[in-house]
């Protein structure tokens, strides 16, 4: 173990970690946008509505992320019309966007499935109560079902985010110098895989730790109504 090597590698690895964070959060954002309509449609009772999201989720959960990444990066570029398209090629020729698109599609499928489970776990009574109060189906979905489902699905979503953090290491296979890619490039010079990968692993752990704390904080905030109020009495302001 050579601590000097680990410290010497740190600036490069942090540079890589910054790219890893970009990949994680940008793809996580678009994945979530994609997952909301998909998850709602997937929870539908109508076969016509849920068929497409079902097929989509089936494909993205059923194939390895690496295969998906290679299909987007090396696969699509084989087609003449992709390479000559003035709209597609500027995006798809860039490994950065190929990675973000693939990761967003991939994580979107998982989040949609989490959302489906959460929607179906919303207590029936609450939906019925909303309907009895005269809310339309759309209003019920927007005001009752989705906020409740978001709370129910949050822990599973946090787990998916952490899985995606580690999945993003595959970006290194399409020339991106993310944390893993940078570590491999540093090793090409220093031949110290143990020290360098340990340092990279440490950075992944720190990122995971911060993510876990942040998610726990959010969970805590959105479940305030589930905890006993200070002072005990409901609806009475504590007099201090």
């Amino acid at each position, binding site marked *: 173990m050579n601590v000097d090597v680990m410290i010497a590698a740190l600036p490069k690895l942090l540079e890589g970690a910054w790219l890893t964070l970009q990949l994680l959060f940008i793809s996580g954002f678009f994945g979530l946008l994609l997952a909301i309509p998909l998850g709602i449609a997937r929870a539908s009772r109508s076969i016509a509505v849920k068929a497409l999201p079902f097929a989509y989720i089936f494909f993205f959960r059923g194939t390895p992320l690496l295969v998906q990444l290679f299909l987007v990066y*090396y696969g699509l570029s084989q087609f003449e019309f992709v390479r000559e398209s003035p709209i597609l090629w500027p995006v798809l020729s860039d490994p950065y966007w190929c990675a973000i698109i693939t990761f967003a599609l991939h994580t979107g499928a998982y989040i949609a499935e989490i959302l489906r489970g959460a929607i179906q776990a919303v207590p029936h009574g609450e939906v019925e109560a909303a309907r009895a109060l005269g809310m339309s189906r759309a209003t019920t979905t927007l005001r009752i079902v989705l906020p409740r489902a978001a709370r129910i699905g949050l822990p599973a979503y946090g787990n998916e985010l952490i899985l995606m953090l580690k999945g993003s290491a595959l970006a290194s296979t399409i020339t991106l110098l993310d944390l893993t890619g940078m570590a491999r*490039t540093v090793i090409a010079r220093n*031949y110290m895989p143990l020290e360098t990968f340990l340092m990279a692993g440490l950075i992944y752990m720190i990122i995971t730790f911060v993510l876990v704390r942040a998610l726990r904080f959010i969970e805590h905030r959105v479940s305030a109504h589930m905890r006993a109020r200070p002072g005990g009495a409901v609806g009475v302001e504590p007099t201090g």
Partner: protein
Amino acid sequence: MIGLRTTALALAVATMTVVSTGAAQAEDPLRIGTEGAYPPFNMVDEDGNLHGFDIDVAKALCEEMERECTFVIQDWDGIIPGLLAGKYDAIVASMSVTEERKQAVDFTNKYWTNKLQFIAPKDVDLDISAEGMADKTVGAQRATISAQWVEENMPDAELKLYDTQENAYLDLAAGRIDAIIADMLVNYEWLESDAGADFEFKGEPVFENDLIAIAVRKGNEDLVADFNAAIDAIVEDGTYAEINAKYFPFSIY
């Protein structure tokens, strides 16, 4: 991909054992690490068998040394760490002798001589100089002297690093990068293929007399001496020339 590699490795170990022709040796088989993704020097065919120039040379050397050899397939960027970790005893994978690598491993004498040269599309004019390549994107395999050469000599070029040389060619064909720098003979092989038909060498070789040798763990002097004697012997008796002729119409020694 991991599964494929493992399967290829298992097959390689199972089928690629070279039985020595001499008297049975008490020694353990010599384990040789190679990449298996670097045509025409070392590659894996559809059936998972290793073949190529490096493999033929390694087999000839093992026969000469009267030792049984097994092959282990290892991704390029982990090939020196794998040697140091004792996963195999020697690397026969067209590795260039460099000062940095000498810090980590010992090398035998050369078994072929390499040059580095750029390739790019035929219909593009490229000025192969630090200025001419300043805004260009150059592809190279990670952890190779080609990658190192660009870092040191064309600091303003954008360097893209690939896990395998084959992936770099895919991206050149797709037009994501302007040029590739690689071992001249590997480029030659690709230019000769259908995929490389629209591409050509650009400029003169930028680095010559790049010696390709076998790497072993440091301090393994007996093994280096055995390899050196065997290399001399196969060059002397024409075995080397025979293998050479299978792959290239000119001598690469």
